């Protein structure tokens, strides 16, 4: 597995299932493999950034570059693990961890004011000025009991986002 053969053995499927903590059923893993092979046009065993961006629905997403950083060059096992936060059995904790990772671009476990500002910039583009963005972010941070200098960790995110249900699920088409 990981090479360009397009047949998955039962052993491969179980290995992937274990790696993603049973986030997907075996049938879903087979479908995801078909999709992975479809995206991996040059058969290199991983999907490159170019190949992801050739999906127009992905390319128009404001957070495509951030997601790309996380998913570029993964082999199939890691690809399924990446998607496990969007699986039907993903816990709230897993989803919040995923969101945290999107913000924490340098991976040091702390989200700074600038990290949040960067994501806000991706989401709003040129339609809010940099100054306004800083203003808005500072205001809502202070109202939530943080400051501009606060470094948010995962437990902060859990506290902020955990109160209401997070809808973050993707359906894997199974034919």
């Amino acid at each position: 597995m990981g090479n360009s053969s397009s047949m998955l053995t039962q052993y491969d499927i179980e290995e992937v299932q274990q790696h993603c903590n049973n986030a997907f059923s075996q049938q879903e893993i087979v479908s995801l493999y078909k999709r992975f092979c479809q995206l991996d046009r040059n058969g290199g065993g991983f999907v490159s950034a170019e190949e992801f961006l050739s999906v127009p629905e992905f390319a128009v997403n404001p957070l495509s570059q951030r997601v790309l950083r996380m998913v570029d060059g993964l082999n199939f096992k890691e690809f399924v693990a990446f998607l496990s936060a969007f699986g039907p059995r993903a816990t709230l904790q897993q989803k919040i961890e995923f969101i945290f990772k999107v913000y924490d671009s340098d991976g040091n476990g702390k989200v700074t004011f600038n990290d949040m500002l960067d994501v806000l910039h991706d989401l709003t583009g040129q339609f809010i000025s940099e100054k306004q963005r800083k203003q808005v972010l500072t205001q809502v941070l202070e109202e939530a009991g943080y400051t501009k200098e606060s470094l948010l960790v995962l437990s902060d995110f859990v506290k902020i986002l955990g109160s209401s249900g997070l809808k973050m699920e993707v359906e894997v088409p199974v034919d």
Partner: protein
Amino acid sequence: MSSSEAKLKPSSSELDLDRPNIEDYLPSGASIHEPHGKLRLRDLLDISPILTEAAGAIVDDSFTRCFKSNPPEPWNWNVYLFPLWCSGVVFRYLILFPVRALVLTIGWIIFLSFFIPVHFLLKGNDSLRKKWERVLVELICSFFVASWTGVVKYHGPRPSMRPKQVFVANHTSMIDFIILEQMTAFAVIMQKHPGWVGLLQSTILESVGCIWFNRSEAKDREIVAKKLREHSQGADNNPLLIFPEGTCVNNQYSVMFKKGAFELGCTVCPVAIKYNKIFVDAFWNSRKQSFTVHLLQLMTSWAVVCDVWYLEPQNLRPGETAIEFAERVRDIISVRAGLKKVPWDGYLKYSRPSPKHRERKQQSFAESVLRRLEEK
């Protein structure tokens, strides 16, 4: 074949501002924001809807589905059927294929032995020459169709030669053109191909009237639009056949129609083509195979079965834009041929989407943030 290795690059000239709204077609998950209520930190940090859209696009997207080849189901699975299938393969490759190749060769000989003299000797008498050339092109196309044992059922009234009308059809393979051409010698607008196809294009197709375009040239669009207009206004030009999708789609979906054919001030006659996958999938996946290989695949299958419907001619309605007109005709064709519509431009095969789509999302989110900031 020609542009499969073209690098993806942003193309602002292709995708106009005034396109139908993609958001109307795309699955709408939870909206990016709650429409009202005071803005909180939670609302800014909760990027789950956008991430869900991104992951959804990774897992499945309507654009890639349009270009997926769907070969017919294999049926050679047991002791009785497998030998049957094997003998079928032998028959197709060793008997059918040589016979077909022979038929095609004979057809070419007949065609060339009439076409070359007619083309050169009747140089003075244009209208007679054109008439003969039309008949001969229809003839060679019939030979082509015979070489795949094409079983084509035409429905609807045969196209008549009238000025100020163009024909539009959905596009699955270059054989669409041949199948339609055997009935009526259309003039066609095509991407110039390299190799033997290009040679045919520049010699024989010139005689029925053809317009070339070059996908990779930005300025090309205006030049082509002008040529289209000139051709459609001419009284004794062959009727124009246009494939507004601009690329081959797998005959289960239809991508957006380019508006060029719909702003010529002509009547638009829709033609729907549906292939029956029972023996072979006629979709030409230009990323996967060259046209020659595609033809060989057709010539070694049992038959190419398809239906062609000539549908009711449509005119631009008062107050309708060219884009709305194009969408309306696309709807007519898609319904008739059983195709699902997707909101993507076929040229996204070769280039990235315009940044306008992302900007629209960013704008709506930005506006909601600013609005909710004001609320108490």
